[in-house]
């Protein structure tokens, strides 16, 4: 009896916390939808600023995610499977963008790839300029979003039971074949969710982009920048863009949850 009451008490105590927290997350998102009429929303969709930003954002975030997967997977696998001197330092380095304020990332990228930057200076001699181009948008996204994939990929590779890999090896499969036919399928859900997190972070990137890539419609003005810019003029456009961004993010995450739930 006492035990029972204690449990009820616990529920009574925790329920408000849970409800309150869910409300706290839901109300601001719902408010976006309540503050604009459907007609005004559709009208905003016709604004070229909105479409340009949407296309640019989807394109750059997809490319950035692909680059992160291509360049981050070998490193994650290496860190999951081997030890070498300085591994902790490498690990810390790849995690660093998570704790760096995006503004710091923006300045750092400018110092490196700007026209007078450490590397940019030499690129400039060949007439190659990165700052204020779409390439700069992608670099900024890769920089700030890569840790999400790399961390997740490393953890997923570590969780793969090595006896499966060893079995495949003894059956005569080459290293690359084992990696793609055994390791990746087992680590699949972790890899996908890491890639999605990176995609979502790249989609939301603002601070580093506005500092390093500037703000130009169709070239560097991604959705977060367009939201910030249109807020100076037409609030309806800003809200519409925000709604689209929320829907995309929600849909992508939900989709991934379904994909990764399927047993492999």
């Amino acid at each position: 009896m006492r035990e029972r009451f204690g449990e009820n008490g616990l529920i009574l105590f925790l329920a408000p916390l849970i409800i309150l927290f869910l409300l706290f997350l839901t109300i601001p998102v719902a408010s976006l939808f309540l503050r604009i009429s459907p007609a005004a929303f559709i009208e905003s969709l016709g604004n070229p600023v909105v479409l340009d930003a949407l296309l640019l954002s989807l394109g750059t975030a997809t490319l950035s995610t692909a680059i992160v997967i291509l360049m981050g997977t070998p490193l994650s696998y290496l860190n999951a499977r081997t030890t070498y001197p300085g591994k902790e330092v490498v690990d810390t380095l790849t995690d660093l963008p998570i704790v760096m304020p995006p503004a710091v990332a923006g300045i750092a990228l400018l110092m490196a790839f700007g026209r007078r930057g450490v590397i940019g200076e030499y690129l400039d001699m060949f007439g190659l300029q990165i700052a204020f181009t779409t390439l700069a948008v992608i670099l900024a996204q890769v920089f700030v979003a890569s840790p999400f994939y790399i961390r997740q990929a490393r953890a997923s590779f570590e969780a793969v039971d090595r006896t499966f890999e060893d079995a495949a090896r003894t059956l005569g499969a080459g290293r690359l074949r084992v990696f793609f036919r055994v390791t990746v399928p087992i680590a699949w859900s972790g890899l996908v969710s890491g890639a999605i997190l990176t995609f979502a972070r790249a989609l939301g990137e603002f601070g580093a982009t506005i500092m390093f890539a500037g703000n130009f419609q169709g070239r560097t003005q991604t959705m977060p920048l367009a939201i910030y810019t249109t807020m100076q003029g037409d609030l309806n456009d800003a809200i519409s863009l925000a709604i689209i961004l929320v829907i995309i993010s929600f849909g992508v995450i939900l989709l991934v949850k379904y994909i990764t739930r399927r047993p492999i």
Partner: protein
Amino acid sequence: MKRIALSTCILSLVMIAALLFAGCTDSGLVGETPPTTLTVFCAASLTGAFTDIAQAYEDKNPDVNIDLVFDGTQALRTQIEQGASPDIFVSANTKHMDALKAAGFMENQTVFFFLENGMAVIIPAENSAGITRLSDLAKPGVKLVIGTKDVPFGSYTRQVLDKMAADPRYGQEYKDAVMANVISEETAVSSVVPKLMLGEADAAFVYKSDVQPGDRDKVIQIEIPEEYNVVARYPLGILAESDQVGASEEFIGHVTGPEGNAILVKYGFDPIEQTV
């Protein structure tokens, strides 16, 4: 045991309620303690000047704190419309101040123009693009930074270019060529000058006042002749919701007084003579 569980949960509910309501009473406590805190929302172009003016005022009046918030005028207007309640609003153009006046956010009779500003073109001191005249801005490959059309300095820039386009000496092609050179449209002047000084941009349209006294050797300023230039008049005023009208008026008096004006002039503004 029963008691403890029950009281714990009542206590936690009370704490949650307290947390919820804490947010609603934040403004009630300010003002009863002697040091007065004035919150001033201020157009980004005034960053240097108002920082100095507020410092000087605080030095003279130790019981007053001036909290300055700098941002693009439009961003500040949106914040006020969405519930921010500063004591004083200093706007970089008439449009946004008028909108706030019309919507009842301002104490309308306190609003007046206190300074003038104009546009200028700035280029980094090393001038790698070789810009010496306004006509050079139309050269292909020049990297130009301006404001978005909705922020005051961006709309003034377009007005200047329109005036030049109307003059056959420059023409519409000039305006088109200049606009084609724009690599970034910024939302506040405060983010333009750093981009220029880093050498990322070759030129920018900014306010005459945007070159801070300390940066005059790093930036070259090209004047825009009066016939093409626009006069930006800055209004300021006290918010309708401010409960510190007296203290606000005293601070505004300081801004428009000889000491404040001297600082404004130092930063490149033209204070408007007040006839009271």
